[in-house]
């Protein structure tokens, strides 16, 4: 039980560090959004699951927090991406396709 919790917490914090590193290294808003939110979601869920294994007194609240993060984090990241695209933030110079722009032109 302790070993499983320790491994999960260590893995989750490594994922959080990788998410922060991607937030520094990526070239534009959309790539930063992708790497930051995905890696931090997986890292936080793994850390909370590991702390539920290590301390059974907080297991119910940890599982509640895992469910809330799994529901809420994709909503906030997709809202940020859509609003940045509507606000006119340009893509990085190496980007090859932009399907949302095509949809907006077709619908308007």
């Amino acid at each position, binding site marked *: 039980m302790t070993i499983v919790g320790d491994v999960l917490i260590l893995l989750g914090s490594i994922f959080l560090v990788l998410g922060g590193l991607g937030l520094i290294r990526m070239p534009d808003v959309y790539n930063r959004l992708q790497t930051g939110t995905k890696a931090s979601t997986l890292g936080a869920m793994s850390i909370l699951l590991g702390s539920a294994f290590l301390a059974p007194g907080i297991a119910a609240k940890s599982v509640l927090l895992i469910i809330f993060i799994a529901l*809420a984090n994709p909503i906030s990241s997709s809202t940020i991406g859509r609003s940045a695209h509507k606000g006119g933030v340009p893509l990085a110079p190496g980007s090859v396709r932009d399907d949302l722009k095509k949809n907006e032109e077709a619908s308007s």
Partner: protein
Amino acid sequence: MILIISMALIGLAALLTVIRLLRGPSAFDRLVASDVLSVITAAFMAVYSVSTGSIFFIDVAIVDVIIGFIGVVMIARFLQGVLK
């Protein structure tokens, strides 16, 4: 020991996020960084709660994630009409 290493790694992740929060060219970069930072803070509170054995910090983590989600969605919808 594992918990101390993990807290140091989470602090490093928060430091990288704060660098992006301070440097970001547009307002959306700062918004992404603050979204990631609220989740990182909640994870740190969970590890700290396990490490010290106090059960109160997990409640603080729940409130932090909820307020961070509502604030990020509200600011994103607000910025949609401003920067055009």
